[in-house]
């Protein structure tokens, strides 16, 4: 097949995919008898037109940056980590244990400890599928799916039978002590000029952005990143160049699981301030869409995470103010994954035709 110019490959393909996904989403809204234009207005109104809306949009964005980066790092080693959901739930467990059982003097230290706990637990949950892939050749996709379900069961068990404070009915942990409460954006200097009332978005947003930078530097500015990318492009070539495949699979999946786990400092520590069942609430899966949309580049991931943050908050507003059910955002999520992840060849074929047509016309003119 003919090649597209580089700018078309980087900008045009994802853009056209996205437009196709949203066009079909609009058709779906029309089909259930609603007005897509009105729906878009409600979404923008509810997520971007007030500090309150921004507070939620950025809160979701933070979670999605972590899970998107998690999928991205694994993708570069040509591993498809669908286990972000389970890894994030285990990360939540790590956060809860750190916050509940260690007496922290100040939130900043607690944040550091919780981030380590979250990353450690998330990485541990990714370690077994990674080891099975590296050593026994078990397909990572299937094992991580299985581990999502095992994680869900494990957390239900721990919350109901172990961590639930005596005398409480809800399957949750005790509330975290006040010293571990993270400042939300309205309590941070500069940010409090915009956010005057309490919002869920918190200091974790800055950590998420920093992690995006770290992941970029790791992938494109270190030897390890080079090895990961080389391994992802061609396993046999990497092996020939002396790159140890077991090491690369393990390291990339541990980083991936750690990033997915770190999402929990945003929702468990920053927002709920206790561990609930199903704490990740689908963010692990959205990470797949975010990574695909963001073309596996940290900058793209941050932008895509923001888009999904907008969709998530806007979708909630749709559920509140219109007759369109909140599940519309699951539909959009599916469409974006389908078009940007699975049908990019179709988009590319269409664009190649169009470019060829343009070239033929120019030749005729000349």
């Amino acid at each position, binding site marked *: 097949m003919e090649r597209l110019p580089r700018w078309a490959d980087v900008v045009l393909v994802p853009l056209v995919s996205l437009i196709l996904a949203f066009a079909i989403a609009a058709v779906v809204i029309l089909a259930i008898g609603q007005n897509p234009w009105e729906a878009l207005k409600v979404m923008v109104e509810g997520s971007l037109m007030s500090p309150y809306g921004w507070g939620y949009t950025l809160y979701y964005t933070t979670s999605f940056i972590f899970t998107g980066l998690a999928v991205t790092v694994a993708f570069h080693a040509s591993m498809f980590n669908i286990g972000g959901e389970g890894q994030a739930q285990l990360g939540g467990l790590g956060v809860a244990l750190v916050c509940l059982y260690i007496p922290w003097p100040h939130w900043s230290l607690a944040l550091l400890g919780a981030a380590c706990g979250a990353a450690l637990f998330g990485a541990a949950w990714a370690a077994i599928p990674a080891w099975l892939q590296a050593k026994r050749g078990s397909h990572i996709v299937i094992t991580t799916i299985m581990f999502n379900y095992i994680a869900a069961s494990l957390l*239900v068990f721990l919350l109901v039978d172990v961590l639930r404070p005596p005398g409480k009915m809800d399957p949750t942990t005790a509330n975290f002590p006040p010293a571990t409460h993270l400042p939300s954006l309205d309590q941070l200097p500069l940010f409090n000029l915009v956010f005057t009332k309490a919002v869920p978005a918190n200091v974790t947003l800055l950590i998420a952005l920093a992690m995006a930078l770290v992941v970029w530097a790791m992938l494109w500015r270190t030897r390890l990143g080079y090895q990961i990318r080389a391994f992802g492009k061609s396993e046999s070539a990497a092996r020939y160049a002396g790159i140890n495949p077991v090491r690369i699979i393990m390291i990339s999946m541990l980083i991936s699981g750690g990033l997915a786990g770190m999402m929990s400092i945003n929702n468990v520590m920053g927002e709920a301030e206790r561990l609930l069942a199903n704490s990740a609430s689908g963010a692990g899966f959205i990470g797949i869409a975010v990574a695909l949309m963001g073309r596996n580049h940290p900058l793209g991931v941050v932008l895509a995470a923001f888009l999904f943050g907008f969709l998530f908050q806007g979708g909630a507003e749709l559920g509140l103010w219109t007759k369109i059910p909140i599940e519309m955002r699951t539909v959009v999520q599916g469409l974006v994954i389908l078009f940007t992840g699975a049908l990019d060849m179709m988009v590319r074929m269409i664009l190649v035709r169009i470019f060829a047509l343009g070239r033929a016309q120019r030749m005729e003119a000349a």
Partner: protein
Amino acid sequence: MDYATLLQMLDSTLRLATPLMLACIAGLYSERSGIFDIGLEGKMLAAAMCAGAVAALTGSAWIGLLAGICGSLLFAAVHGITAITFRGNQLISGVALNFLAQGLTVLVAQRLFGQGSRTPPLSGAARFEPIILPFADAAQSVPVIGPFYAEVISGHSMPVYAAFGVVALTWWVLYRTRFGLRLRAVGENPAAVDTAGVSVAGLRFAAVAITGVLCGIAGAYMSTALQAGFGKDMTAGRGYIALAALIFAKWRPIQAMWACLLFGFFQALANRPDVVEAVVRVKVPVPFLTALPYVLTVFVLAGFVGKAIPPRAGGEPYVKER
């Protein structure tokens, strides 16, 4: 545990294993042809909604079943076009279709009935009623075997018996027909099939269509027989358990049946923690029973219980010439 409880458990095992069995065999066709399908869950869910909705509107479970199959086929067609025609990533396509089904079923059910994403409760001819096999009542008096026949074998709805028929038929198709031979070949070495002058794309589309039909029956069974109507996310991960069973059975039909019966038995146990406690004399937390199929599958995948080797060309789009 007395004999009556055991029969009860086996009875509900059959009921719960049926959707797993149908979905598992569905996946078998697709994966044997070299198309990975982690979208079994979504196809079942779409079928459950279509069947529940149409059965409620027409009052006929059979028309509901047909609608369920159509709904599932639609998703199978998208997966087929993505994976075969456009050579897209089959895993990503499956993930995407699962999300689409999860959202669209709620949207459509809410639009049609406005009852908070449920379809109206079904009764009478809109559900598949239990079929009492001949002599079931008369056999009750025969010791041991009689109650087994009456309680466990007899008294299920049509899809339960159909599922076992599908397993037998699949064994015959896979190992005793020309189509079966070609299907197995195209999943291992599509180039050889192509060289023999058989269309790789045609075979794979046929396999994906069969997957759609069987997932359709599985989903329709969920909403018109196992339960009376569709509810949000009612398949609850069964598509993934079926996938696990398929790996557990190493992509073979008879073994798939046993794997699904085993996993169905686990589900039946998870519904009755009191029985489990009475037998093992220790309180077993329900989550352990829920997680058991997944843990077992990981063990099989790890190669501790024999090695599970997938069809060799699985997940790879076939390019005719390079």
